[in-house]
């Protein structure tokens, strides 16, 4: 076996990360090659040194864990409102809200103004009988559905005009 291939595997061998078969092959070579054996001993020492010194190299002591945890919780609380907004747009919530809305306008009669507005339903009888009460309402004046009021107004308009002349 070529030395360079074995040397490439020495660190993994020291870390116990070679497959059993590959490990056996490398160990077999080390028994025969003194140069690689010397390098293997050096690698083992290097790995041991790292294992001993590295944990202390960036070890953090005296960490204020509780304030840090509080800070994380604060951030998550802030996120909570964001999650609520996302929850609001959930399809199930939108469907439920639409169903409630439809029920309100249909069962409670809130739908009728819409039907009157688009001309699908007659206006209430009181409106038809006393249109002068609603004449000053810009809304009513501009509603297409109340076009038939013109006819009513023209019918009663002569009476009103006659009264005014009197």
């Amino acid at each position: 076996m070529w030395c360079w291939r074995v040397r490439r595997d020495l660190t993994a061998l020291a870390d116990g990360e070679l497959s059993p078969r590959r490990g056996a092959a490398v160990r077999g070579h080390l028994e025969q090659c003194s140069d690689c054996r010397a390098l293997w001993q050096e690698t083992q020492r290097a790995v041991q040194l790292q294992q001993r010194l590295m944990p202390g190299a960036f070890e953090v002591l005296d960490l204020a864990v509780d304030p840090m945890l509080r800070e994380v919780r604060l951030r998550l609380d802030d996120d909570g409102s964001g999650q609520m907004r996302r929850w609001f747009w959930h399809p199930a919530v939108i469907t439920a809200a639409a169903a409630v809305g439809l029920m309100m306008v249909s069962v409670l009669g809130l739908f009728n103004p819409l039907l009157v507005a688009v001309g699908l339903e007659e206006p209430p009888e009181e409106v038809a009988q006393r249109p002068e009460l609603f004449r000053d309402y810009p809304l009513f004046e501009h509603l297409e559905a109340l076009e038939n009021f013109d006819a009513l107004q023209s019918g009663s308009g002569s009476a009103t005009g006659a009264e005014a002349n009197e």
Partner: protein
Amino acid sequence: MRPEEDPDVQLMLAVKRDDAAAFEALFRKHIAPVVGFALPFVGSRAQAEEVAQEAFAQVYRTRHRYQPHAKFTTWLYRIVRNLCLSELRRAENRSARVSVSDRTNPEENARPVTDQQTQNQEDALLAREGISRMQTTLLKLPEQQRSALMLARVEGLSYQEVAQVLECSVSAVKSLIHRATMTIRDELRDMR
């Protein structure tokens, strides 16, 4: 160890069920190592703490997507490393690299002498010097080599787990760790 045998995985599964106590337990257990891992990336302890806090916030935010395919720490350190890299990219535009001595104080980071009551004063001083030189050498390594080495040597992750964190192949990890080990061996050749 299979993922389901990892006690941290069990805690994370509890977090997934909105268990706040489990989240706190994970936080208390891993916050210091996470800050230590982030430290050489970001240059200051305050920034490392900031990254660590954000990492745990992300752990909680994404808890419902967590799948116990691997050790909890592989998932955690992937988040931490990605945050560190983002922070690095931002910092590259802001400032020059901070000197090693400004980043961390080796004497502060070394274990206190009082913790090494079995060693004499001279050994403690040598240990501190060794840690300081190791820190300096680690900071000189390319980011991927340092990450791979720290995850393997400090966090005790296998090459397979390191590969999951770094999102690369096991053979790439093997090469990264080998090159880092050889560099440190050459730098600290006079130490035993």
